C-alpha cells in the first residue's frame, strides 16, 4: 500500500486535516522548549564532569550545601513553562475532542479485525473510508467485541472504540489523498492487520463516488424496517395516545424524566442502552415491561435503530450528538442535518437491499 509521502520534512507524517498543523505547532513548541532545557542541562553536566574531574585521588569537593534562591527558581520556572504547555495542549485537546454541530456523520463498527463503515446515504465500506475534503466529518463508533481504536496519523487524531457505548471522533480532511488508518488499541491476534485507509476526495469526486456505488438502505430506512417489521418495536412504540411504550417522536436530545425522579438526556447512547437494557432507565409514566433485545440485534442494527429514532425528530440543541443522516426523511427537520446531499443519491437508493452490497470483498484477514 503506497501512501502519499511528500511532506517537506523527512520522516514526518503528512498533514491532511484541519488540526494537523495545530498539533504540529504544539509538537514543535514543546520540542523547542525541551531541546533548549535538555541540551542546556546536558551541556552543563558534561562541562562540569570534565572541568571538575578530580585532580587528585580522594580529593574533596567544595563545601556547598545548597541555595534557596536556586531551588525556588528552578521550581518556579519549570512550573510556569509546564503550565504554558498544559494550556496550549488543553486548547488543542478540547478542539480535537469536541465535535462541532454541523458534521456529516459516518457510522463505524469495529470488530476483530476489521473496520465497517456506513455512510448516512447507506453506502457501506470495509477497511476503506471515503470522505470529502473540506467537510466536517464525525465518526460515531462502537465495536462488537473488544476495545479498538481509530487512528489516522495524517489527521493527528485517534479515539478508542469501546464496546457498549458510542464514542465519537471528528475531523475535517484538507488534502485529497490516501492515508493510513490503524487500529491503535491492542485487540488480539491480528491487531496489526486491522489496518485500512482513509481516502480523501474533493467534494465533486466524492459525490461521484457516492453515486457510483450501489447503496443499500440508509441507516434510517434500515432502522425503520427493523422498527416496524423485523423487531416489532412499533407494536408498543407507535400507535398514538394509548401506546404502551414511551413516545419516541421528538424524543432525541430532550431531557427524559425517569421513574425515581432522575432526568437523563436522550443521546445516542441512552437510546442504545434502552434497547439493550430497558429495565435500567424506565421513563416516568410507563411500566418496565419492555423485554431486552440484547443478543437479538447487532451493533450495526442498533446504529440503524438509533438513526431512525433520531429521525423522528427531537431537540436540535443537542448539538454534540444529534445529526440526522444527510438523506434522512424530511421528517427530521433537524437544523443539524449534514450539509450537501448529492441529488443523485436518492435515485440510487431505489433498489435497496437489507443486506447492502459491500464495496469490497472482505479482506482475507477477517476470518474470525
Amino acid at each position, binding site marked *: 500500500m503506497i501512501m502519499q509521502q511528500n511532506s517537506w520534512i523527512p520522516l514526518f507524517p503528512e498533514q491532511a486535516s484541519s488540526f494537523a498543523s495545530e498539533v504540529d505547532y504544539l509538537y514543535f513548541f*514543546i520540542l523547542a522548549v525541551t531541546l533548549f532545557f535538555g541540551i542546556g542541562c546536558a551541556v552543563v553536566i558534561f562541562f562540569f564532569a570534565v572541568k571538575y574531574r578530580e585532580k587528585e585521588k*580522594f580529593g574533596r569537593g567544595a563545601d556547598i550545601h*545548597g541555595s534557596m534562591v536556586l531551588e525556588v527558581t528552578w521550581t518556579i520556572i519549570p512550573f510556569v513553562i509546564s503550565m504554558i504547555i498544559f494550556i496550549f495542549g488543553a486548547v*488543542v485537546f478540547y478542539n480535537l475532542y469536541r465535535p462541532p454541530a454541523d458534521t456529516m456523520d459516518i457510522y463505524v463498527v469495529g470488530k476483530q479485525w476489521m473496520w465497517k463503515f456506513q455512510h448516512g446515504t447507506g453506502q457501506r465500506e470495509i477497511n476503506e473510508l471515503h470522505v470529502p475534503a473540506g467537510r466536517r466529518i464525525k465518526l460515531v463508533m462502537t465495536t462488537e467485541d473488544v476495545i479498538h481504536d481509530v487512528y489516522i496519523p495524517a489527521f493527528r487524531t485517534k*479515539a478508542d472504540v469501546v464496546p457498549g*457505548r458510542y464514542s465519537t471522533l471528528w475531523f475535517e480532511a484538507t488534502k485529497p489523498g490516501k492515508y493510513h488508518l490503524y487500529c491503535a488499541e491492542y485487540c488480539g491476534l491480528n491487531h496489526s492487520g486491522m489496518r485500512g485507509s482513509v481516502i480523501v476526495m474533493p467534494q465533486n469526486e466524492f459525490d461521484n463516488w457516492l453515486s457510483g456505488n450501489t447503496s443499500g438502505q440508509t441507516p434510517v430506512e434500515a432502522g425503520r424496517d427493523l422498527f416496524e417489521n423485523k423487531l416489532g418495536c412499533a407494536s408498543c412504540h407507535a400507535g398514538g395516545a394509548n401506546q404502551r411504550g414511551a413516545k419516541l417522536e421528538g424524543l432525541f436530545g430532550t431531557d427524559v424524566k425517569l421513574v425515581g425522579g432522575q432526568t437523563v438526556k436522550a443521546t445516542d447512547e441512552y437510546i442504545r442502552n434502552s434497547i439493550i*437494557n430497558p429495565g435500567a432507565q424506565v421513563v416516568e409514566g410507563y411500566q418496565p415491561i419492555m423485554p431486552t433485545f440484547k443478543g437479538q440485534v447487532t451493533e450495526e442494527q442498533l446504529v440503524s435503530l438509533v438513526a431512525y429514532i433520531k429521525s423522528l425528530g427531537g431537540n436540535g440543541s443537542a448539538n454534540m450528538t444529534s445529526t440526522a443522516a444527510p438523506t434522512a426523511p424530511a421528517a427530521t427537520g433537524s437544523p443539524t442535518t449534514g450539509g450537501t446531499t448529492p441529488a443523485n443519491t436518492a435515485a440510487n437508493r431505489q433498489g435497496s437491499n437489507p443486506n447492502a452490497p459491500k464495496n469490497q470483498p472482505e479482506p482475507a484477514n477477517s476470518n474470525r
Partner: protein
Amino acid sequence: MQNIDAINSEIIERPAVNYLNNGYSLKSWLLTRDHKRIAMLYLASVSFFFMLGGIFAGLIRLELLTPQSDLLESASYNKVFTAHGVIMVFLFLIPAIPATLGNFLIPLMIGAKDLAFPRINLLSWYLYMSGAAVAAYALLQGGVDTGWTFYAPYSTTFSNGYVVATGLGAFIIGFSSILTGLNFIVTVHTMRAPGMTWFRLPLFVWAHYATSLIMILGTPVVAITILLLALERLAKVGIFDPAIGGDPILFQHLFWFYSHPAVYIMILPSMGVISELIANFSRKRIFGYEFVAFSSIAIAVIGFIVWGHHLFVSGQSIYAGLVFSFLTMVVAIPSAVKTFNWTATLYKGSISWDTPMLYALGFLGLFLVGGLTGLFLGTAGLDIHLSDTYFIVAHFHYIMVGGTVMGYLGGIHFWWSKMTGREYSEFWGKVSAMVVFIGFNLLFFPQFILGYMGMPRRYASYPEELQVLNIFSTAGASVLGVGFIMPVFYLVHSLFFGKKAADNPWLLPGLEWRTASPPITENFESTPIVTWEAYEFGEESGLHTEEARRTTLAPTA
C-alpha cells in the same frame, strides 16, 4: 600483590568470618534471615528474569526487522511482547533495586543489624519466587497474549491465553512487594543508629521510604483488580465486559491507579542510587539535600493522582482528561528539581569517572530525554496523536531502561565490592557502561520518530516506509544486548578471580563503607554512632586521619 595483602592482614584485624563465608550449605542460604543473603538471592533471581525478559525483547526486535510478520506469526508475537512486558515489569523492574540493593544497604546505611522483620523479608523472597513460578508455568503452558496491561474485555472474555495464571503470578508477587515496603518503613522508623537523624539519612534511604509508601498503598489495588478480572473470566460476573453489564473503562482506571504509581516504584529507587553516586563521586555534599529528599516524597504522593493520563483517548470525560493533564505537569516538577540538584552537585566537585559514575552520568542523559518526552505525552492535545504509538514505547523505555536499569547497574558496580568483597575489572566496567549508553540510544531514539510518524505499538507487521528506522532500532538492540551481557561475564569472573576489595575503596563517609567488605552477619562490630551529616567529606567525617585512610582502604584479608 600477595605481599601487600599479607602486610595489610598483619596490620589490620580482619573478621575471619563474614556473611558470605559463615556457611556454604544450601540450607544456610534458603533459610537465611540475613538481609544481605536475601538480597543476594534476589540479585540472582531478578537478574535471571532480566535476562529472560531481554531474550523476549530480542525476539521482538528481530521480528520487527522486516515489515511483514515473518519470523514470528502474529499469535507468537503477541505472546512474546506480553511475556517481555510481564517479566520485565513484575519480575524485574519493580523488585530490581529495592529488593536487591535496598535490602542489602538500608540496614547498613542506617547502622542497623538487619531489617525489622527478617523472617518476613525471607517470606517476601519466597512469595516472589512462587509468583514467578506461577507466571513461568503460564508461559510454558502456552503463554498469554493480552499485553502486560490485561485490558478488558479482551482479557476477560476473548483471549484464550493463560490470563488467570499469569494474573495469579502478578498477584502473589504483589504481596512480596507489600511486605518489602512494610519492612523498609518500619526499619527506617525504628532502627536508625544513634545520631542517624532523618536528615542525616542517605538519599537512597529517603527514596526507598517513598517507594515503600507506594508499594503499601498501591499494590493492594492491583491485587483487587486482578481478583475482579479472574472473577469475571472464571465466573462470568459482569464487572468489566459490557456484554454482561460491566464497564471496560473501569478496568483501566483500576489498573492504572496502581500501574502508574508502579512506574515510580521503578524509578524512585534508581533516583536514590543516582543521588548516592553523584554525591559520592563528586566527593561533596549533595546540593539541596532537603529538596532532593522531599521531591521523592512529592513524587510518591502526586504520583497517585495522575493515572488518568493513560486514558486521554479511552473515552473518559474530556474534563477529567484536562485535570489529569494538569496534574501530570505538576508531577514533572519534583523530577526536574532532582535533576537540577544533581547537576549543581557536580559543580566544584572532585569528580571521579569510575564505572559507577559513568552509569550515573549515562542515567542523567537518558533520564533527561525520558523525562522531557513525558511532557509531550502529558500534554493532552498532543497525546491524542502519540498515545499507543512507538513514541510512548520509546518514552517509557528511556525511563525504565535509561532510568531504572542504569541505576541498577550503576548501583551494582558501586556496591559490588561491599556485597562480594571482590573487585571487578574497571576497564571492562567502563567499556560496558559506554556500550550500554550507545546501544540504548540507537535502539530507542528512532522509535520517537517512528511514533510521531504514527507507527502503532504492539504491531507484528507495519507499513514498508517505516522499515529503515526499525532496522536502526534492531541494530541498537544487538549493541545493547552486548552491553548487558558483558557485566555478567566480568562480574561473575570477579567472584572467583577478582582482587580482594578494600573495605572503603573510594574513602567515602557512608556507614556502609565503615564496615568490612563483605560485612559480617551483624553488619557492624559495634553499633555505630553517627556524628556527621550525609555526604560529609570534611573533617567531621573522620575520614582524613592517617589511620582511617589506612584501615578503610586496606583490602580484607
